């Protein structure tokens, strides 16, 4: 084929076992997208924009800078692990209510970062929130409504 070595890996994605064969340089992002986890977005592929953020063992991580092999055996959560059409997660509910999105492309990564923040620090200040999402670029909103939404959830105002 192409002379590359391929490795068989097994990850737990949103509670489900996912197997695949990857090259050493295959990123977790490309692997997830190849398995139709299209909610994980590729914005820059260099760790600069945060659109591909997923949770690895609960920690917000950019999947483009994580090799698929590194994620072997670990618990990966994408946006699809939050809510469903019938029952949105409070963060998702708040993003809709506060119009914390426009084009929606940064939203999957932004929500995962917000989820990790609130799991670790349920009552962050606005500055804490801004710090936490500072690696997630949004070009549409100006961030205010995003911070509003996360803050509302932290205060149980949703």
């Amino acid at each position: 084929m192409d002379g590359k070595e391929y490795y068989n890996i097994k990850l737990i994605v949103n509670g489900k076992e996912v197997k695949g064969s990857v090259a050493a340089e295959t990123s977790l992002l490309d692997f997830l997208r190849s398995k139709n986890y299209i909610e994980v977005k590729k914005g820059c592929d260099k760790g600069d924009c945060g659109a591909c953020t997923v949770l690895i063992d609960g920690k917000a991580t950019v999947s483009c800078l994580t090799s698929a092999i590194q994620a072997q055996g670990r618990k990966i959560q994408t946006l699809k692990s939050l809510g469903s059409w019938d029952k949105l997660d409070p963060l998702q509910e708040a993003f809709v209510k506060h119009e914390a999105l426009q084009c929606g492309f940064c939203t999957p990564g932004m929500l995962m970062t917000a989820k990790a923040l609130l799991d670790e620090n349920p009552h962050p200040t606005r500055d804490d929130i801004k710090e936490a999402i500072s690696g997630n670029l949004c070009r549409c909103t100006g961030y205010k409504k995003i911070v509003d939404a996360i803050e509302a959830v932290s205060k149980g105002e949703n």
Partner: protein
Amino acid sequence: MAKEMTYIGKRTPGLDERDKVLGNVIYADDFTLPDMLYARVFRATKPSALIKKLNVEKARNLPGVACVLTADDVPNNESISNVVGQTTEVGLLEAKHQVLVKNRVRYYGEAVALVAADTIDAANRALELIEVEYEEIPGVFDPIAAMKPDAPKLHGNNNIIAQWKLRKGNIEKAFAESDVVVENTYRTPRQEHAHLEPESGVAWVDDMGVINIRSATQVIEHYRDVAAVLGIPQSMVRIEGTIMGGAFGGKEDVTVEVFLGLLAWKTRKPVKLTFSREEMGFGRQKRHPYILKYKTGATKDGKLTAMEAEIISDAGAYVYLSPWVLLYSTVHSTGPYFIPNVKVDSFSVLTNNIMTSAFRGFGAMQVAFAYESQMDELAEKLNMDPFELRKKNFLKKGSETANYQKITSDVLLKESVEKALGALGEKSTSSGSKKIGRGFACSWQSYGRMTYLHDTSSAWVGLELDGSAVVRSGIPDLGGGQRESLRAIAAQILGLKIEEVHVISTDSQVTPLAGTVTATRALFMSGNAVKLASENVLNIITRTASKMLKVSAEDLYLRDKLVYTSGGESIPLVKVIKECAAEGSMPQSLATYKAPFTDPIKTDVIKDPVFADFTFGAQAAEVEVDTETGIVTILKYASAQDIGQAINVNRAEGQIEGGAAQGIGFGLMEDYLEEKGVPLTWNLATYLIPTSKDLPDIQSIILESKSGKGPFGAKGVGEPSITAAAPALVSAIYDAVGVRIKHIPATPERIYWSLHNSDT
């Protein structure tokens, strides 16, 4: 129509927002087809060179590669278009473009060859096997140098590819009679759109021989460009737009469509092409950098007397929309002020720098930095409050602009400034090296395309047998909720619940063409078209219902799927629809909204109305400037815009906040740098855009004069929201530390050296 506002001016969330937070939206790159090929673009790595040898054979022979295309494989590789209103003295009448480099590379990143392969890995390896030999030829990288007669020429005999003028009154006399005159040169940066979603699409040829292109585009009408390049009938190309992950003008010119069309046509297989972030950097258009020389005069009591300006824009290596962007700059160059004597000469100049074209603000933004900085300097010279000076000179409804256009809508500039400044609240106090300052700036920005283009937008609205409605409109949705606004308008007119209205949009062979989602025209144009079509449907219903109820049609209105008389009597909508069907008068309508039309511009002196109307607004900032580092922290920020009528308050606020954020980036940090045509900032680690920590909580203030030409008196908000940010910040920095930055972005370095070196 329902008697009261049910959806207009409310905060109703859009149905697609639920899918966006669930990750269900299938953006352009999320779409795949069986047996699909993956494409890549081979790009030049010289800014000015001849191609001596191009060898793609090794790439073609690589296993997995389906095709490699060069200029020789493109049926119509070169195209030309005329620049309206230009004379032969201006040089090129015909703007030239090439799909792939034939002989000469004019900018770093120009597309040379296309590759399609079974896998993205194979496509990438094929790129590495393409061999090219360049002969570098002299380039020109500075627009002023490019204007000189002996400069290397990009195309033809003249690098100046557009020139516009304003001529009003007698400026010599007016300057001589002025009590104060200020003269300055300003520079603005090359700004990158940096939409989060890369340009992307998938194309395939269907079983009717039609090339289908599913792509993220602001302009589905680019199917015509694909047809022209391939030399096939326009009816054989279809563009189905996707929900875009942001665009801001970056997906206005053709992006992947022509490349995809070529590859799908050649291979007869589905093909996907998505640009990498680096490619978005060096292969795509930016905002034009400008040099603006301004001279403005006033009387001692603060009346503007005259303005003279020379405006130069760097168009990069190809024309694209540069002449139009420059036209916007020229018309907007006076600012929203009445100035009796005006002389403006503006030039757009070709260089071997990266191409420049459409970007939110479209030429009206660079001039705002200049005209508002001039107003501040005049105010200081006159020892007058900057707001007082502006109040004496604001355009009013009925005023005539420097291109002899009457303002036909309300001008709430005074109110906008008051609200924006008021929103800043109590002023913070300076401490140590950290100095507090405040500033504001006003802006005007047209909405809708130039009226000589005779812009139209079509929409179809129809009622189903159960009373629910379908809207068809070609307008793309770039994330601003364009579809949702149309849904709200139809629901409002037809008295339906918003979830009973479905909007089908952005498909060049399914939806009536609505024109582009550019020029702050989507709501204005397609909103009016949907309103018109919905009203036609309403008339069909009330006409039939009036016969059934034996009352006059004017007496009837719709609410909750009932047709009501003014007396409170009602009949189910579905019964009326059945009756309509029985009569053969279907409750459906295809309507076309026409913008105000004017005659084509005949000369480069603009002396006729060019725009349908303008949005007026103001932005205000409180900043803290650290004199030891030059670092600016924005403490408070407010933007007040008269948008006529908010259709959806949430989304209007979103535009105002997002526009301010991009304008803040333009004013303080964003600068796409090149060294002799070689890009230096082609990713998001080197080209910095505002993060959550760079921005304050932007306060959005909506004013509603209801005087616009859009539906329900709406004006446009998409672009006007960005325009005044940079001058407001520069004004605040001046207030804090006493230096006026004339070359933005106002980076810490520029501020520091302005403070510590009186020579700069």
